[in-house]
């Protein structure tokens, strides 16, 4: 894909056989004047090369925080990673000194955000924001980095790239802006791309284009893709595996078809049931009663228990359910996953 050799220090401990990304028992908390919010409580993820992992969950379940913790761009204070490991090809990023961690960002792991209008700097041209990556990380000249920037814009299918390079973010439409962000993320040919709700702010037709673009780029570049979203529809086409998060934990993890066909966790099941379908016409919409817990006050036992129709006494007390092995590559944190599977 690129003819430029990465000029990064070789990270000590890099293991070519280790999984691309492995997050183990991650805990993140936010210390505020109203109490400690436990945003992530023991999350586990695994990403293989060229794999697409979707992290699914409602607002406030900790998925964005997890992504930011992986990238190392949490607002500290008030956010603190209190436990866990984030291993990129075997190296625990959390133990790296900041200057090395910084080199991993954009070069190896890149991230795109939800609202491209606010995520891009409004006072600099798109060309500037793209070329700065090349100038800062690769030491390229202004000329060369400008050419690379135009090239990138063409790769993300922005028409008339040469003339648009001098435009400001607010002069692009929503979909175009998101493509600019993708271009920025891919500039240094990272191995992992984290997309935090990339299509939430866009309308449906543009959504499809962007998802298509992401899928194509991932294929061409052999990247791993982590897709964070709350929209189950977006995910079905693109993901290989899905991790469902609730109150800071991964409550179910499975290959994409298995989750849609036979969910093993009550939350996942309820999510799927709440998607309105054409053949349900005339019936009452199914909702999950109650609200997600305040992160300062997570219920004991299984965090979902107040809203769960399978809940029994054991669910209301600690210890919370461990990730039961439902199948060779599936886990679910529910004492009663068999009942959930059986109920169809």
């Amino acid at each position, binding site marked *: 894909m690129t003819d430029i050799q990465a000029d990064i220090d070789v990270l000590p401990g890099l293991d070519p056989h280790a999984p691309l990304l492995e997050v183990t028992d991650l805990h993140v908390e936010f210390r505020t004047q109203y109490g400690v919010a436990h945003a992530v409580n023991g999350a586990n993820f695994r990403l293989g090369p060229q794999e697409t992992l979707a992290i699914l969950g409602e607002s406030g379940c900790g998925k964005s925080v997890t992504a930011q913790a992986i990238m190392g761009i949490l607002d500290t204070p008030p956010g603190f990673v209190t436990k866990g490991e984030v291993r990129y090809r075997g190296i625990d990023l959390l133990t790296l000194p900041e200057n090395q961690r*910084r080199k991993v960002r954009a070069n190896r792991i890149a991230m795109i955000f939800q609202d491209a209008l606010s995520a*891009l700097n409004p006072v600099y041209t798109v060309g500037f924001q793209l070329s700065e990556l090349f100038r800062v990380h690769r030491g390229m000249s202004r000329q060369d980095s400008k050419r690379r920037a135009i090239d990138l814009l063409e790769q993300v299918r922005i028409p008339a790239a040469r003339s648009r390079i001098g435009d400001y973010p607010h002069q692009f439409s929503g979909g175009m802006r998101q493509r600019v962000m993708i271009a920025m993320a891919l500039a240094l040919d990272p191995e992992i791309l984290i997309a935090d709700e990339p299509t939430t702010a866009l309308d449906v037709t543009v959504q499809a284009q962007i998802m298509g673009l992401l899928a194509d780029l991932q294929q061409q570049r052999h990247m791993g893709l982590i897709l964070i979203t709350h929209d189950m529809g977006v995910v079905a086409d693109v993901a290989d595996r899905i991790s469902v998060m609730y109150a800071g934990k991964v409550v179910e993890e499975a290959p994409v078809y298995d989750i849609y066909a036979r969910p093993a966790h009550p939350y996942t099941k309820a999510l799927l049931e709440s998607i309105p379908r054409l053949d349900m016409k005339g019936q009452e919409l199914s909702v999950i009663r109650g609200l997600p817990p305040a992160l300062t006050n997570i219920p004991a036992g299984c965090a979902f228990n107040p809203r769960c129709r399978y809940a029994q006494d054991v669910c209301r007390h600690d210890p919370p359910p461990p990730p039961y092995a439902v199948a060779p590559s599936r886990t679910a944190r529910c004492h009663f996953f068999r009942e959930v599977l059986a109920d169809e």
Partner: protein
Amino acid sequence: MFRYLVRRLLQMVLTFFGATFIVYALTFANQDDPIQALAGERPITPAQRAALTERYHLDEPFLKQYWYYMKGLLTGDFGTSLTGRKISQMMADAWPITIKLALMAIVIAATVALLAGVISGIRRGGTFDNITLVLTLIVLSLPIVVLAPLSQLVFGIQLHWFPPTAGRTAPLFAFILPAIVLGSLVVATELRVTRASVTENLRSDYVRTARAKGLSRRRVIGVHVLRNSLIPVITLIGVDIGQLMSGAIVTEGVFNIPGVGFNLFRGIRTEDGPLVVGFVSILVIVFLVVNLIVDLLYAVLDPRIRYE
């Protein structure tokens, strides 16, 4: 852009006429004996009375008088002070001194405000920030009628660090204390605006993106945050220049600096109507022009504004 410019110029013209009319009316309207008022407290002979009536068109309706006055203004004739000197001449004498003082003041104030504001904004809640907040609060509240005489007393007279007055021929050094005093009028708000702007921009989404791009903290703040944060501050500084040039009355009075404010104040005291109106008219123009330039500057600094 062009339409915006035209609109602003029209606004300026309207404001200019409105403001000068108000000042003119306040100075000259409804006086029992306008001639006596023009002369202040001096007695007038009938001959003088006739001459003054002719010169100032006092036998004509008020609005007509205003019209004559404006005509004169627009042709560059600012009239004659009751002391006999031409107002444009007095202006030419006083203006450079005031500009010198105002520029020194703004340079001192802006430097302090920007440096301290950026540091406070970055380390918000830290010791430096708290101390700065307290200091700005005090400076903000100290009225100039307190600050000017007291600093003259302490630093000029008692400690002898600076000369207590700065006349026309005084060296630059003598202007430093008055410039600091004058700058105190604006330094506190400039600092606070800088601080607030930096804090708000540090929380922006584009900062997160910049960090995700693996940029160093220095670059994130120095290149990305600063450029956005400084926009409101620069425009504020521009406006402040206009304000300082016209607000130096107390400072010039206390330190005996023969600038615009000093002369103007003396004119008000001695009820020198033509001088008051003449000087204020010029100051209004300067004020308006500076504000217009600042507005245009805003468009230059912030690309989002250019396309209105």
